[in-house]
C-alpha cells in the first residue's frame, strides 16, 4: 500500500494524537484538526486521500461537515467514527455521505484496514471492475463463477465464492472479520462467536490445502489477507 494522506478530524486530542502516531507508524501521512470548521476548510483545500471524521465535533458536527463537503463536490472517501454506537446511527452516517462507519471504541487495526480499503476502492473505481482476479496461481472469474488454482478448478459454495471474491478484490490488504461480515453477509452486528474464522478456515482448506504456498493469511489481531507469500506486509 503506498503512503496515504489522511486527515483526522477529532476533538479528543489524546485520541487524535494516538491516531496520527499509529497512522505514521503504518507508513502513512496523517494530519489532525480539532474542530469541524477547520476540518471542513482543510478537507476542501488539502489533497487528502481519506478523511477520518468524528461524529460529534465542536462548531460543525461531523455529519453536517460531510454533507457540506459532498454538496461542494468534494468526494474524498470519509470514514465516520462515532461514540453514539449502533443501529440507526450507522444508517444516518452513510446517508449523510460517509463511506464507512466505525463505532467507538475500535481497534486501530480495524480502522487502518477500513481506511486502506476505502482508498484502494476509490483508486480502483477510476477504471471498471475487473471481471477476474488473480493472485499468484489462484484465479477467480467473476462472470463464470469459476475458481482455479494452477489451472485445476476448485468447487466453492456461493457464499465461499463471495468470501474469496472479497478477499481477492482486496488482495494485499488486511480485511477484518467485521468487514467480511459486512461485505459478504451484509450484516453489521456483533456475531459474538468466531463464525467468520470458521468460514475462512473452511475456505482456506479448499484453496490452500495441498499447495506449498499458502495464499490466505491470518493477520494477528487484525483479520485476514490474500496475497502471494512474497508480499510486503510482515
Amino acid at each position, binding site marked *: 500500500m503506498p503512503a496515504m494522506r489522511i486527515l483526522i478530524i477529532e476533538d479528543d486530542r489524546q485520541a487524535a494524537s494516538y491516531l496520527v502516531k499509529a497512522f505514521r507508524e503504518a507508513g502513512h501521512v496523517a494530519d489532525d484538526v480539532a474542530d469541524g470548521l477547520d476540518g471542513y476548510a482543510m478537507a476542501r483545500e488539502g489533497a487528502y486521500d481519506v478523511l477520518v471524521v468524528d461524529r460529534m465535533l465542536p462548531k460543525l458536527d461531523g455529519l453536517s461537515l460531510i454533507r457540506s463537503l459532498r454538496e461542494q463536490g468534494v468526494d474524498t472517501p470519509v470514514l465516520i467514527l462515532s461514540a453514539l454506537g449502533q*443501529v440507526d446511527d450507522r444508517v444516518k452516517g452513510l446517508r449523510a455521505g460517509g463511506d464507512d462507519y466505525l463505532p467507538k471504541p475500535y481497534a486501530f487495526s480495524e480502522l487502518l484496514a477500513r481506511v486502506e480499503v476505502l482508498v484502494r476502492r476509490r483508486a480502483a473505481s477510476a477504471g471498471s471492475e475487473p471481471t477476474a482476479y488473480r493472485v499468484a496461481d489462484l484465479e477467480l472469474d467473476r462472470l463464470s463463477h469459476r475458481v482455479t488454482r494452477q489451472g485445476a478448478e476448485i468447487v466453492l459454495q456461493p457464499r465461499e465464492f463471495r468470501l474469496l471474491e472479497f478477499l481477492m478484490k482486496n488482495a494485499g490488504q488486511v480485511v477484518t472479520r467485521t468487514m467480511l461480515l459486512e461485505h459478504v453477509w451484509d450484516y453489521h452486528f456483533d456475531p459474538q462467536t468466531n463464525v467468520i474464522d470458521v468460514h475462512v478456515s473452511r475456505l482456506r482448506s479448499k484453496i490452500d490445502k495441498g499447495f506449498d504456498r499458502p495464499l490466505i493469511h491470518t493477520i494477528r489481531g487484525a483479520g485476514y489477507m490474500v496475497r502471494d507469500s512474497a508480499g510486503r506486509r510482515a
Partner: protein
Amino acid sequence: MTGLGKLLRSTAFRLLLAYLFVFTVFAFFTIGYVAWNARRVLDDQIVSTIEAEITGLSEQYRTGGIRRLVNVIERRASEPGASLYLVTTNAGERIAGNVAELPPGIPSRPSPPSATSCIGEGPECQYRETPYSRTGETEAGAHRAIVRVFTLTGGFRLLVGRDVEERARLREVIRRAFGWSLLLVGVLGLLGGWFITRRVLKRVDDMTETTRTIMAGDLSGRLSVRGSGDEFDRLAQNLNAMLDRIGELMAGMKEVSDNIAHDLKTPLTRLRNKADEALRNARTPEELRAALDATIEESDNLIRIFNALLMIARLEAGNARETLADFDAAEVARGVTELYEAVAEEAGVPLEVAVDLDLPVHGNRELLGQAVANLLDNALKYGRPSEPGIAPRVGVEARKSGDRMTIAVADRGPGIPEAERGHVTERFVRLESARSRPGFGLGLSLAAAVARLHGGLLRLDDNGPGLRAVLELPLSPLPKGEVETASVRVRGSPEGLEPAVRRP
C-alpha cells in the same frame, strides 16, 4: 405577582372579557335594530294620521270654504293632544292654526304632485321633519314635527303635522335601557368572572403546587382527581399516567444502571487483575506481550458487553424506530443460519433449517439478524445434550401463521426450568448459573428487546428435551398479491442425518 394581577392575567379572565365584549356588541345591534324598527312604525303611524286629517280637512274646505276650514281647525287645535295645523294664504300669511311659526319658506314650498309619502328634506317627499313652535310660545323652533303642506284649490296652503315628541321619548327610554343593561351586564359579568376565574385559578394553583413538589424530586406525588370528569380531571389523570410512566422509566433506568455496573465491574476487575499480575510476575518480553494480548482481548469483551447493554437500552427506549423498513425475515433466517452453519458443523452439531418463502416484516433487518444470531449462538453454546443418548441437534424454523410469523431456534440441551422461563425474558434478568458466562443473558434480553421493537415477543418453550426459543413477530401487510407458503428445504444438513424439514 399580586393576586389581582394574576387574576387579570389568567386565561379564564381574558376569555370572560372577550365574551363580555362579544355580548355587548351583540346587545348593541339587537337593541339598535329594535329601536330603528319602533321608530319606523311610529313614523308610519304619524304619516297615516296626517294623511287622514288632510283628506278630512280638504273635504271640509270643499264643502264649506275657507271659513269652515278655519272653524274646524280652530276647534280641533284646541283639543288635547291635537295635531298641528296652519292655514296660510298663497303668500304664506297665517290665517289660522295652532302653530306659531315654522322655519321660513316651509308653507310656501308645497311638495309637487309627483312627491311620494316619504319623510325627507328634498322635493321628492311629501313629508318633512322640521322644528316649530306653538302659538303663544316665545322660543322659536322648540319642538319638532313631521308636517305636510297641501295646496287647496284657491291658493290657500294647508299644513298638517304631528309632534314627534313621543318618538324622542321612546328613543330616550331605549337609550337609557341600553345603558343600564350594559352596566348590569358589565358588573354581573365581571363579578361572575371573578368568581369563576378564582375557582379555576385555585385548581390550577393546586396542580402547579403538586407538580412543583414532583419536580423537586418526589416522584410518588400525584395530582388530585375530583371525580367530576371535567377537563381538569382529565388533565390530572393524563398527568398522573405520565408520571406513572416516568416512574417506570426511572425504575428501569435504575435497574439498567445497576445491571451495567454489575456486568462491567466483573470484567473490569478481571482486566485490572490481569494487568496487575503481568506487571508483578512477567519476566520476559514474551510473557508481557501475552499478558497485553490477554488484556486487549478482555477489553474487547468489555466493549462487546457494553455495546449489547447499550443496544438493549436504546431499543427499550424506542430509539431505533426511525430507520424501520420492510424486509424479508425469511432471508434473515436463512442468511444468519448459513453464517452459523460452519460453526455448527465444526462443533459436530447438525443444523437443520426450514424456512417458508417470503416473510415480509416491518422493522430493522440488522436487529432481527442479531436476535436470530444470538438465539443460534445460545443454542450452539449451551444447547449440548446434558444426558447421554440424546443426539445433539439445533433446528431453525421460520413459519408463517396467519398475520404473524415465528422464527424458532430449538436445541436439545438442558433447557431452562419452567419456573425461570418467564423470568429470563424480562429485562436484564439472567439465570444465576449463566451470569458468569459472557453474553448469554444479554443475548436473550436483546432478542426480546428486538422482538418488542417489531411489535412481537420472545417466547421460550420446552423442546422436550431442550429449549425452543421463538421470536413471534407480526407480518407486514403485503403490497403485492398472495405469497406462497410452500416450505422449502434451504440447505441440507450434514450427511447421514434425518431430513431437514421438521413440521411443528
